[in-house]
């Protein structure tokens, strides 16, 4: 589990390093179009069912009407009772854009889905061999989430930052709710996350 902690530290360090380099760049110099694999943004997220903190890379797609983010999340034992590391692939649609002044854009509603993979042998993705077929129908490692949220984009003198939040649920909580609408309320199954995105080539 030490290894996962290191991996997270590296992800955070990378986030800070790339951010500082980009901030130090002379924005007046002509910039070549970045390679496709260079992310448009770096992400830092709090909670959201994928870790205490998550760091990752974001790509704008479909003419900036949606984004794909890949995040590495970490939950330390001191906070979550066990060291847990996840990798998340997130798709966010930005269907509604409101301009609020020259430098600020508000996305009042975002909708999306993400798949999280919890690392480690303890969380099986397939049913281990010593179980009969179909013993458990779900995977411990993979969670499927849906969410709605909101986002604000602000352009500072040299760079662009975004702040966002998400409220959603996963497939296991959803099935628990659907079958127990008498006792459980929607609020019982929701979970939230919030984060910032920093644009590398504004």
């Amino acid at each position, binding site marked *: 589990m030490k290894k996962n902690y290191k991996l997270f530290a590296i992800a955070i360090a990378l986030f800070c390093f790339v951010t500082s380099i980009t901030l130090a760049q002379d924005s007046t110099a002509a910039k070549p179009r970045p390679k496709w694999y260079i992310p448009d943004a770096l992400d830092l997220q709090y909670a959201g069912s994928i*870790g205490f903190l998550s760091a990752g890379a974001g790509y704008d797609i479909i003419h900036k009407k949606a984004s794909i983010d890949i995040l590495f999340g970490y939950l330390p034992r001191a906070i979550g009772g066990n060291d847990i590391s996840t990798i998340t692939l997130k798709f966010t649609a930005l269907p509604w854009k409101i301009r609020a002044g020259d430098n600020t854009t508000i996305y009042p509603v975002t909708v999306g889905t993400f798949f999280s993979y919890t690392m480690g042998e303890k969380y099986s993705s397939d049913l281990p061999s010593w179980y009969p077929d179909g013993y458990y129908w*779900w995977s*411990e490692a993979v*969670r499927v989430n849906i969410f709605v949220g909101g986002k604000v984009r602000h352009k500072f003198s040299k760079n662009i930052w975004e702040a966002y939040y998400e409220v959603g649920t996963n497939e296991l909580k959803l099935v628990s709710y659907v079958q127990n609408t008498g006792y459980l309320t929607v609020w019982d199954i929701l979970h*939230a996350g919030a984060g910032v995105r920093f644009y590398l080539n504004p």
Partner: protein
Amino acid sequence: MRPLLFSFIFILTGCSLFEYHPYEVIVPDDEQDLNAKAIQAIQATIPQKDTLTLILMGDTQRFYDDVDDFVTSANTYAADFVVLNGDITDFGINDEFHWVHSIMKKLNKPYLAVIGNHDVSGNGELVFEKMYGSLNYSFIKNGFKFIFLNTNSREYRFNGHVPDTTWLKDQLTGDDFSHGVVSSHVPPFDNDFDPALENAYARILRHSNKVNVSLHGHLHSYSNSQPYDDGIQYIVSTSMDQRMYLILKLWDDKFSVKEVYY
């Protein structure tokens, strides 16, 4: 800026909506050590008397509406305490433990829980330990020793240590009790119980000369039988979606079982 930042962090961490992971092991103080607290209540409130009345139920997993109705029904019945025979949760996720306890705490009598195979999923075992306590535990009341045992062998890849038969034998040795009652999730005659330990389990109960009932869940249907023809009755409660629970009365070396439908 700084007070703003601190208040932002305060709101974030104070708000229960923020979840770090479905398998996080985060249990509020008032939901910790529930079995120890229940045993304390049992010792403090149940007077010395000949007959103890237990409510047997289990497999609450993903049947929240039915469990809620169970509590309403069980509260009208004068029993001493309730035994939840494992599979508290379906997926072993932190929230489910909380949901089930938020219903069960409305019972007007103490309840004790034993771990089920579904509760071991993810970090469920850690949540169970924090919330309810040890996986194997026991207490003595009015001459009866109640023994709760982790029998979810398949979850531990049939490693030969689950159930802990050495511990069970120790528990059934001694002269500070007259009768033993053993409770666990998976019954010994089920495929999910370590086949290498099945006979040992039955033998330990038989040789103690103090046990006449073994209480279980897991099968999702009621059964009441003597699979080993040794005078020891194996009683299996149903899952809560069957909307049935059992009333077990214990006195001397006798017992009676009654089915209650709700």
